[in-house]
């Protein structure tokens, strides 16, 4: 009965609120799509100069059975191209968004002119300079993060020479900032094996002053070895929360032969945070491993641009055709050499005669950013059994033991996941998570078990439907072949991805 009620609520939500606008926008697209259209044929444009239209829609709806709180998110993206012109539009509806506000609007729109060597964008755009030490404007929909710029961007791309010039205002969590920024980034192929680059950015932050960032980078490619280095400097007045001036250094190298690769990275960030209100403009590499498993990512290291330095080494090897190995070590300290985070991770994967894939991994994390500076030990077992060409069973066990130095304060989290897949259309995943954490915190009683069933359906080539029922802890979740960050859930969730 409850589920029926929830279903009705979902439908009424779809249709009675402003999300209707999204559907109205989509319906003509669906209709056009039926006829495998080409605008060129429909409107008589020549073959050499056709109109093309492409669109996608991402819909997420969840209903919590206890609080009856329903959450609806929808993103509709539409691109229309004709010759050198492209119009990109995005309409978003959130009821409510992650900060409790209900809104819907045309959130992204631009006009692009592209030729072989030149691209000019007017309106919203994303951009990255180098490895993000000076500027990175990007969208991460799973994290609900978007700091797109609104203005004009011009890019010249000649053989051996790239130049980007831009001006615009950044989108914050709640609204677009009023302070414009201007920047330029260039790269030149100095020789066949070496590129040199440089960037400059300036913005005047209201009630603070002029902030300038400038830096350079060099990349070198040799047989079996490559090298990248970037240095950036921040020049700004002293502020209440932002210390005066700062710098960032990032180095990386890869050494490889057939079947073996070694990556080494080094970072040093000193008073290098570049923020205006709630917008962070730069996003340098944190040098902490992003894992493929839920629990290993549960306590991810948080980048501290004020004061940190460290390194990371990762080796990947396939000594035999059916065996692959991975080992990773990351280490971060502050500038006084006090350890902030370290992790050692190893993984071994073996394909057994096309019948099964066996994988084992182990991680040891030490995170001094957290209260109690816990040490975490996490073994992982991942087995896929191929029943037939199209059917497979995947079993995953993740165990995360947390030792908060004091033996009494130890606990564990554990995830068991069983997935039945039939290629290419359907998979059913049952995921159970258990924690003993609640036992050690009398003031924080909570759930200790979560169980969720997820059905993933591929509807033709262009639609993917995901239905989840049950409860799920907050954090990164992987199911049906896709990994995303999700909030806690105790009810049901629908996700529909469509491309037209």
């Amino acid at each position, binding site marked *: 009965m409850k589920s029926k009620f929830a279903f009705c609520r979902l439908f009424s939500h779809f249709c*009675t609120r402003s999300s209707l606008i999204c559907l109205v926008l989509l319906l003509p697209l669906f209709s056009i799509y039926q006829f495998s259209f080409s605008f060129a044929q429909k409107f008589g444009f020549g073959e050499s100069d056709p109109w093309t239209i492409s669109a996608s829609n991402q819909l997420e709806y969840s209903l919590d059975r206890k609080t009856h709180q329903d959450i609806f998110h929808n993103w509709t993206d539409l691109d229309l191209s004709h010759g050198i012109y492209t119009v990109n539009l995005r309409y978003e509806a959130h009821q409510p968004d992650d900060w409790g506000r209900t809104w819907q609007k045309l959130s992204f729109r631009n006009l692009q002119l592209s030729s072989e060597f030149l691209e000019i964008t007017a309106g919203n755009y994303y951009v990255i300079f180098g490895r993000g030490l000076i500027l990175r404007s990007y969208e991460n929909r799973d994290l609900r993060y978007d700091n797109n710029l609104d203005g004009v961007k011009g890019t010249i791309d000649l053989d051996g020479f790239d130049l980007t010039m831009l001006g615009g205002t950044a989108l914050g969590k709640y609204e677009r900032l009023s302070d414009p920024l201007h920047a330029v980034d260039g790269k030149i192929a100095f020789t066949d094996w070496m590129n040199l680059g440089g960037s400059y950015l300036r913005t005047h932050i209201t009630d603070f002053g002029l902030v300038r960032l400038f830096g350079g980078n060099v990349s070198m490619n040799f047989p079996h070895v490559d090298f990248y280095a970037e240095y950036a400097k921040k020049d700004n007045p002293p502020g209440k929360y932002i210390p005066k001036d700062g710098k960032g250094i990032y180095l990386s190298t890869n050494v490889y032969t057939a079947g073996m690769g070694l990556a080494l990275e080094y970072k040093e960030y000193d008073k290098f945070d570049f923020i205006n209100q709630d917008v962070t403009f730069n996003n340098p*590499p944190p040098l902490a491993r992003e894992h493929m498993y839920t629990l290993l990512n549960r306590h991810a290291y948080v980048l501290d641009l004020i004061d940190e330095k460290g390194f990371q080494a990762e080796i990947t*090897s396939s000594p035999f055709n059916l065996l692959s190995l991975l080992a990773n070590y990351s280490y971060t300290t502050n500038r006084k050499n006090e350890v902030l985070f370290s992790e050692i991770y190893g993984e071994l994967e073996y394909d057994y005669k096309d019948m099964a894939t066996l994988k084992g991994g182990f991680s040891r994390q030490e995170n001094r950013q957290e209260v109690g500076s816990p040490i975490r030990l996490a073994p992982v077992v991942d087995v896929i059994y191929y029943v037939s060409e199209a059917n497979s069973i995947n079993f995953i066990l993740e165990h995360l033991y947390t030792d908060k130095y004091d033996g009494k304060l130890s606990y564990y989290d554990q995830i068991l996941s069983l997935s039945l897949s039939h290629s290419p259309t359907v998979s059913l995943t049952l995921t159970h998570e258990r924690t003993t954490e609640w036992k050690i915190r009398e003031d924080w009683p909570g759930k200790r078990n979560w169980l969720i069933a997820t059905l993933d359906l591929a509807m033709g080539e262009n639609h993917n439907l995901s239905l989840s029922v049950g409860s799920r802890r907050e954090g990164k979740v992987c199911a049906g072949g896709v990994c995303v960050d999700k909030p806690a859930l105790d009810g049901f969730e629908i996700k529909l991805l469509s491309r037209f």
Partner: protein
Amino acid sequence: MFAGSKFVRSLFSKVLLTFFITCLLVSYAHGAKKISKAPNFSAPNLDGERVELKTLLKQGPVLISFWATHCKPCIKELNQLQKFYPDYKEKGFEILAVDVDGPRSVSRVKSKVKGLKWKFPVVFDTNRDIYRKYHVLGIPHTVLIDGEGNIRYTHTTYRSGDEKIIKKKIEKLLDEQKEVLKEEEGKDSEK
């Protein structure tokens, strides 16, 4: 008055919803017939050289696979594709792996690729410009493009066995290409 408007709203919503679902199902039924042009792009490969889709398409069909180092199913899929890549490469087929790792992990891509012995070209899409151009909503995402630049097959996620479907689609495309070449040769000999 209130009840009346509620009724109209409810009726309207049901009509719209029915239409929406009908369109979805019809588009599903017609999915195989869809032909649309693949947007062109160029991106740096592991050695920093620019790779352009248009250039690759001159040799024959191309399979674009969007992946990242932290995406387990992506790596599984590409490992499977690598198994049959050398055979099809000889026939003019190409795989282009588009890496969407951000600055956080992009430095480890090259060692990962070399360690896994992937032979197909890999290009970087660090700020996800190509990802947005192709309306990718999750990885792994594969796009099969014929030599004329038409998108012939798309697929999101990876389940064991998906590679066999991709293989069949590639074989079909290569057969078509063979037929076209034969026809062209026939015309040339007639002349």
